[in-house]
C-alpha cells in the first residue's frame, strides 16, 4: 500500500473559471468517487495555504486547500490519477497536486477518448 495525498483548492481557478468557491456538490462528488473506488479516505486537519505561478499568465495565485489522504495498492494509482483528472474539471483547476508515497505530480485535465455516449 502507498499513501497518496490530494490537495484541492477551495476556490475555482480565476483564469480558466470564475474564482468563486465550489458548490457543495463538488466536494460530495469527490468524496463519493474516492469511497466508491477505494473504500475510504481521511482528511487532514487544518487548511493548506499555498502560492504558485500560473502556467497561463505567470501571475502568482494564492489559495487555501483541503488535503485528502488515500491509502491504496500501488497497482491502483492510475485509477486515483484518473479521479484527480476528473476533479480538475469538476473543481475547475488548471492542475491538481497529487503526492504518491512522497513523490509529487501535478495532474492536468485531459480530454477523454470518444467511445459512445454514455458510460
Amino acid at each position, binding site marked *: 500500500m502507498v499513501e497518496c495525498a490530494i490537495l484541492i483548492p*477551495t*476556490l*475555482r*481557478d*480565476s*483564469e*480558466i*473559471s*470564475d*474564482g*468563486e*468557491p*465550489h*458548490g*457543495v*456538490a*463538488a*466536494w*460530495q*462528488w469527490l*468524496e*463519493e468517487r474516492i*469511497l*466508491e*473506488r*477505494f*473504500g*475510504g*479516505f*481521511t*482528511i*487532514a*486537519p*487544518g*487548511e493548506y495555504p499555498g502560492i504558485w505561478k*500560473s502556467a497561463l*499568465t505567470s*501571475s*502568482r*495565485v*494564492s*489559495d487555501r486547500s*483541503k488535503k485528502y489522504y488515500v491509502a491504496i495498492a500501488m497497482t491502483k494509482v492510475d485509477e486515483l490519477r484518473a479521479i484527480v483528472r*476528473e476533479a480538475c*474539471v*469538476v473543481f*475547475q483547476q488548471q492542475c491538481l497536486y497529487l503526492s504518491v508515497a512522497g513523490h509529487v505530480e501535478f495532474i492536468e485535465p485531459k*480530454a*477523454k*477518448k*470518444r*467511445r*459512445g*455516449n*454514455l*458510460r
Partner: protein
Amino acid sequence: MSSSSNQKPRNGEETYVDLKGQQWNLALLDPEEHAVVEQLRLRARRNLNWFDFDSYRMKEIMTLSNRRRMSGKEIIASPLFQIGIDLSGRLAMAQGYARPDDYRDDLQILITSQFKSQRTFCQATGLSETMLSHVLAGRKDLSIQTLTKALGKIGYGIRAVPLPTLPKNGKSRKAKAS
C-alpha cells in the same frame, strides 16, 4: 447551520432534512451512529473551522465503518455519511468556503458521472461545446428554455428546490491573482 436541518415530523421522532430535501429519520440510527451524529451536530453548531470539522467527521465515520467492515458503497449510502457531508456543506457555506449549488454544479456532476466527455454530452444534448465551457466556468448562462430542451434530450429535467438558510454572518471569498 440551517434551521431547516432539524425538524420534528408528525410522529414526534426527530428527522434530519438535508440540503437536497431528503429526510433522514434519526430514530433509525443505532446508538453508535446516533452518538457520532450528535457529536457532528454539536461541532457544527459551535461553528468549528470547516477543515477541522471535516477531519473529525471522516475520522469518526471511517472508524465506525471499518469496525463494521462496510464497503465504500455501503458507507456512501449510510445516513451517517450523508448527514455528515451535509453538515460539512452547511458549515463550508457559512464560513465562505463553499456556495449553494446551482444548475452549473448539477450539469458538471452529470457530465462527469454519466458521459465520456463534454463533447459527448454536447452531442447528446445539442448544446455547443464553447457555450457549455463558458457556462460551466460561470461566464455565461443558459436560458431556462435552452436548458429544458437540452436536458430533455437525455431524459433529464429542471425543478425548483428550496435554498438553504445560512447565518447572516456567512462570508464570501473569491480568488484574486496578483
